[in-house]
């Protein structure tokens, strides 16, 4: 997919585990894993906002567009 999810990078920068993020965002661990591993087909704005709030970052820090991966 052309959209790359850099959730693991941001989590590492903020030193936050998947469990902590799951609790902070209110998304199940399995769904966060799907997102982290780039298997998600779509992300709701509300989820993105909650993740940005928990990680104190911008959507661009989590999502990246890569044309070569098309």
């Amino acid at each position, binding site marked *: 997919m052309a959209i790359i999810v850099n959730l693991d990078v941001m989590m590492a920068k903020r030193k936050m585990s998947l469990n902590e993020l799951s609790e902070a965002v209110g*998304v199940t661990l399995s*769904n*966060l894993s*799907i*997102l982290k591993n780039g*298997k*998600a*087909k*779509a*992300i*709701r704005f509300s*989820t993105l906002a909650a993740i940005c709030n928990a990680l104190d970052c911008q959507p661009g820090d989590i999502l990246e567009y890569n044309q070569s991966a098309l």
Partner: protein
Amino acid sequence: MKNTSELLLKIMRILAWFVFVALLIKAGAFLMSYGVSINNPEAANDLYRGTDLSRYERYSFVQYSLIVFYHIILYILQAYIALFVVNLIKNINLEKPFTIMVATILQKISVTIFVVWILAMIHNVHVAILERYAGIKASFFSGEYIFLAGVIFVLAFIFKKGVRMQHENELTI
């Protein structure tokens, strides 16, 4: 409600098995009677529950054999459809009915019905030609299979779309 649906599915599955076995017995009986009619042409008068193809047997053994085999293949294909229905009911999960397997089985059923229609049409053209050139009274197979195949194909298509949408929905975080 769930128990009623499950009971209904169980009954339908038993019925589908019954239809499958009955159609295979019908095809087998037809084949057996045909085998008997090779040595004893009288058997062609009543191949299976009053099916009289003796008029073709009297005209030409090759034509008779072809028409008997149309019948046998048709019954086998119908049995095959019944088997698909058995598999469909076996694999359906009422909690999560939209699976790619169910959509695939539906599509296979529609394709098989389409093949049945093609065979029925070949048979009908064949007996019509025989009626025209040899004066043998024709009895045709129903041509409505194409309508049925079309309806099930459309349903399978919608089902597949539903499966894809459900999959996307599941992967939306």
